[in-house]
């Protein structure tokens, strides 16, 4: 393992400290743990909270701020934050209109958020939860715990955060967040795995000519392994699966070409070149494109493609102002 770190057990804390030192104008950390909250807490709005393991930077601390998240709770790398610390986050951001929790569909995250909501309930804080599950690689069947939440989560947070800023009720914000979840789909691929510092070795191994298709964001193996193909061919594999999942014909979409952390922007733009052409050829209108490292898996080399099908309301909310470290609109 070769990384710029000090002690493996300090990676998460030192990263959060560095983040705060860089962006103390926008966010601060709660004393009790790695809960990042916005400086300008706003009354009269629903508070949006999310959380998950570390290693996905800039998710989610990078999206705390005006127009997006009120709090992001960071666990150890790839590990859900604990219920008691999520509860502290809920208490810190709770204003007068309730708290909407938007975690990704992950067994640990859901259990900890549910426990935290039970604790908040005892304090009389009203919470609601919607769960992102945009990964089309995983079959949504009785035989899994449902689809994973992956990069499309960032767009759901953007939409929900914008709705919350309007002063909408908890029910209204929850409904629009769910609408975004229902219309967003993602699929990813990797050519080199990530190494959790405390594990010291990669989560899986790939030969030089292999790729892992349908990968999640926790370094877990994908759905199948295949020989490496050209960027255009790989993008088509991902797009085919996404486009066959919901009907995108004649629709307007937001596109996200997301890097897993180790893939250069050069390659991400090269991929977007084809994604744009392939979608346009199919008569799908691209309303907005995001290319970059939005939801990473430490140093994994890989990317995902996300499509969010838009209507007028979602377009307005996507365009609404956001002022966070990693997402500006």
């Amino acid at each position, binding site marked *: 393992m070769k990384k710029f770190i000090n002690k493996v057990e300090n990676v998460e804390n030192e990263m959060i400290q560095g983040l705060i030192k860089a962006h103390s104008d926008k966010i601060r950390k709660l004393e009790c743990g790695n809960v990042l909250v916005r400086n300008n807490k706003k009354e009269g709005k629903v508070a949006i909270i999310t959380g998950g393991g570390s290693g996905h930077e800039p998710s989610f601390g990078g999206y705390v701020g005006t127009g997006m998240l009120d709090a992001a709770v960071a666990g150890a790398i790839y590990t859900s934050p604990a219920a008691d610390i999520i509860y502290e986050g809920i208490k810190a951001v709770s204003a007068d209109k309730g708290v909407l929790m938007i975690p990704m569909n992950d067994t640990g995250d859901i259990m900890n958020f549910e426990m935290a909501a039970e604790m908040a309930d005892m304090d009389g804080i009203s919470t609601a939860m919607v769960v992102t599950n945009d990964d089309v690689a995983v079959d949504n069947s009785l035989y899994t715990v449902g689809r994973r939440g992956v990069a499309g989560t960032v767009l759901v947070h953007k939409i929900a955060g914008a709705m919350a800023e309007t002063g909408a009720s908890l029910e209204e914000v929850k409904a629009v967040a769910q609408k975004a979840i229902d219309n967003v789909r993602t699929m990813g691929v990797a050519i080199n795995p990530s190494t959790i510092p405390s594990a010291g070795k990669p989560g899986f191994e790939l030969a030089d000519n292999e790729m892992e298709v349908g990968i999640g964001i*926790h370094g877990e193996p994908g759905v199948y392994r295949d020989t490496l193909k050209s960027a255009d061919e790989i993008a088509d594999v991902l797009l085919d699966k996404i486009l066959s999942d919901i009907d995108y014909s004649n629709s307007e979409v937001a596109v996200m070409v997301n890097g897993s952390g180790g893939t250069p922007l050069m390659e991400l733009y090269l991929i977007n070149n084809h994604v744009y052409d392939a979608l346009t050829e199919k008569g799908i209108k691209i309303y907005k494109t995001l290319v970059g490292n939005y939801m990473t898996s430490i140093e994994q080399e890989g990317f995902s493609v996300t499509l969010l099908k838009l209507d007028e309301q979602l377009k307005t909310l996507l365009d609404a102002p956001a002022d966070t470290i990693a997402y500006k609109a």
Partner: protein
Amino acid sequence: MIRCMEQEKEFLTDLDNAIADGDHGINMARGFCAVEQKIADFGSKDIGTVLKTAGMTLVSAVGGSAGPLYGTAFMKSGMIMNGKNEMNISDFIECIKVSVEGIMQRGKAVRGEKTMLDAMIPSLEAMEKAFSDGLSDKEIIEHGVEAAKNGVEFTKTIAATKGRASYIGERSIGHQDPGATSYTFLLDVVANAL
């Protein structure tokens, strides 16, 4: 238990890597170390308090899904042992029983989904039977360990339908479940302590 989790950290992590996200051993070792610090100066506190504190510490220090699951098990056991300074074998079996119930509820899982329950439920059944057969305390728990080990072997034959391992579906067959394995290690520690 604490030493055991430290010793088996890498093995559990390797098992987890094969089918999921490769952190089970690391998280369990971190959690049990935290429990050690927390209960170090508990002295003569009752077993219920010790178990409840251990459970809350596991929730907070393990995180992930093992935290809420093992945490729930210890907290539920703590409620059974409230105010008691000694634990007999029927108390212990009752603790495992409420742990199984708590874990099924928290994890929304049943037997046969390649989870810790596939070791826990058979071991509970084996211990209940051994108890009614009038075996010694040590023999009862050894029967539980044996059944748990068979449960771990059984997890190799099935595909996961719960947790992150469910994402790789059929590819999880052939690998043993890390949670079932860590439970078996912990029960084995109890058997060896008698």
